[in-house]
């Protein structure tokens, strides 16, 4: 009989905070600068330079801790983690080991078998490293320290997850909470959210943890799911052959769908942490903590309750709209302008979702303005344009944030409501399609639809189909 194995997974999630400046110096954290243009003596580890903590980093870290039910350590401090690597100019990373800012939290995820609590062991503040670029030409490496000193929080979960679905649900929830707080944009692809997966297997029913491995380089939810499946199989295979799992760090190669050990045994992982002497302790007073709490923005659960009460939109719509902060922001801002929540919701649920799928976009890539969507709803409601023209105009708004009033004017898309002009076109359609006219008169209702279609075509879509229908009926009577 073969042994059934249970997978035990814990995550270390690094999140880049949305501060304007680095954690210990006044250098910009903006993306895309030329190499080393956002550097100074502090973030390049020059001798004699001294770090000074960015207050906003403490605020964001505490805000994430509060939103994930952590206890905030009102007295916390920094430690040095020592290691040599060219992307780390000081030969140590300033991090928190002994007294991290947050401890003992949890978040709730939805699983197939109901709600499950995933424990958060701790959240600590630390600095990011620089970036190494390999130079093929000279066979050397080039170091860009623009990312060096960018503030990170590392969120360490308890080993409470059992499969890839739970891991994805946890990451999704965590990302949403942090995005709502505005503490980070949490983009996996761009590296502002990075997840390392600690995984071990054990015979089902056992309460002893197996030897775990840590997997790095997971850049998408799909890669994480594949890496978990691959590593679970690798470990079970080792154990069923009577071999043992080695505790090590492994790098996932998503193209090859395989992982390999990153560091050799001789390369000891002994970081010799010690208290950072260049930084004084952080004391978060009750008043400061209370003011961070008071400034916590509304999170999704609260939003869902409010949407139901305030806007009377279906649960299904509210669920989807609040699933991304950007979407919820657009919804609320547009509704505030036009006062028509159901119509705003429809545009988001139908056309926006369709175009996002077509262009393979995420909600946080939406760039159209609430003002333009509100104008479009206004134009449709007052009958200036009909619904098929509105869809066409919305595509322009979605892609280029075009002003719909101006666009409708320039392209001459206004619905023709002048009865005389309409009649003229309809009479021509009737003359041109005697067979359909005969069909209609002999009782074939379908023929009317064809004639309406021909009229709309002749009007280039700019007529009110209702009016066309009526006039046609009148003319054919």
């Amino acid at each position, binding site marked *: 009989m073969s042994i059934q194995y249970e997978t035990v997974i814990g995550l270390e999630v690094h999140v880049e905070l949305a501060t304007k400046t680095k954690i210990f110096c006044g250098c910009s954290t903006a993306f895309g600068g030329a190499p080393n243009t956002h550097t100074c003596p502090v973030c390049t580890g020059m001798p004699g330079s001294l770090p000074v903590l960015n207050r906003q980093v403490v605020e964001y870290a505490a805000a994430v801790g509060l939103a994930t039910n952590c206890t905030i350590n009102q007295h916390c401090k920094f430690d040095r983690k020592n290691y040599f690597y060219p992307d780390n100019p000081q030969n140590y990373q300033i991090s928190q080991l002994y007294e991290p800012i947050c401890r003992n939290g949890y978040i709730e995820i939805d699983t197939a078998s109901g709600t499950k609590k995933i424990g958060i062991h701790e959240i600590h503040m630390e600095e990011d490293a620089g970036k190494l670029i390999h130079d093929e030409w000279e066979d050397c490496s080039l170091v860009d320290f623009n990312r060096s000193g960018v503030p990170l929080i590392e969120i360490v979960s308890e080993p409470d997850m059992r499969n890839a679905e739970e891991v994805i649900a946890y990451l999704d929830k965590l990302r949403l909470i942090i995005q709502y707080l505005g503490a980070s944009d949490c983009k996996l692809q761009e590296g502002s959210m990075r997840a390392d997966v600690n995984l071990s297997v054990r015979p089902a029913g056992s309460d002893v943890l197996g030897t775990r491995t840590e997997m790095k380089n997971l850049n998408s939810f799909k890669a994480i799911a594949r890496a978990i499946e691959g590593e679970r199989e690798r470990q079970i295979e080792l154990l069923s052959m009577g071999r043992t799992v080695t505790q090590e760090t492994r*790098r996932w190669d998503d193209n090859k769908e395989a992982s390999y050990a990153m560091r050799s045994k001789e390369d000891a992982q002994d970081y010799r942490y010690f208290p950072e002497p260049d930084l004084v*302790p*952080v004391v978060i007073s009750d008043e400061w903590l209370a003011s961070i709490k008071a400034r916590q923005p509304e999170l999704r659960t609260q939003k869902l309750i409010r949407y139901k009460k305030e806007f009377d939109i279906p649960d299904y719509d509210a669920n989807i709209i609040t699933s991304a902060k950007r979407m919820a922001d657009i919804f609320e801002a547009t509704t505030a302008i036009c006062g028509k929540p159901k119509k705003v919701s429809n545009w988001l649920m139908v056309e926006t979702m369709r175009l996002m799928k077509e262009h393979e976009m995420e909600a946080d890539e939406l760039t159209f303005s609430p003002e333009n969507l509100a104008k479009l709803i206004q134009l449709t409601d007052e009958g200036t344009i009909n619904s098929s023209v509105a869809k066409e105009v919305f595509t322009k708004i979605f892609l280029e944030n075009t002003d719909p009033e101006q666009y409708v004017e320039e392209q001459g898309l206004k619905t023709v409501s002048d009865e005389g002009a309409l009649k003229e076109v309809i009479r021509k359609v009737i003359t041109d399609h005697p067979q359909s006219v005969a069909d209609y008169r002999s009782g074939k209702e379908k023929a009317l639809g064809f004639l309406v279609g021909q009229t709309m075509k002749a009007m280039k879509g700019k007529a009110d189909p209702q009016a066309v229908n009526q006039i046609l009926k009148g003319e054919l009577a």
Partner: protein
Amino acid sequence: MANIISDEMIEYVGILAKLELSDEEKEQAKQDMGNMLDYIDMLNGLDTEGVEPMSHVFPVHNVFREDVVENADERDKILANAPAAKEGAFKVPKTVE
């Protein structure tokens, strides 16, 4: 000296610190480290009942900066400190994971 540092230990610490020590230096370092550990043992033996843990030698906390960009692009000055540079970056021996 109560704490005796083994040859293996001094070798290991040397690797971690990227230090190449001569035989004489190794012997000296073993002595020094042993003495330091003895001192720590002595501290550990003291009665600290009722003494507040100290996390920093200065009685100061909460030294912050506001989140405002202060530094302009001074890449040339920074790179002037680099042993070797190329295309605006620090040039180092080939490093791959």
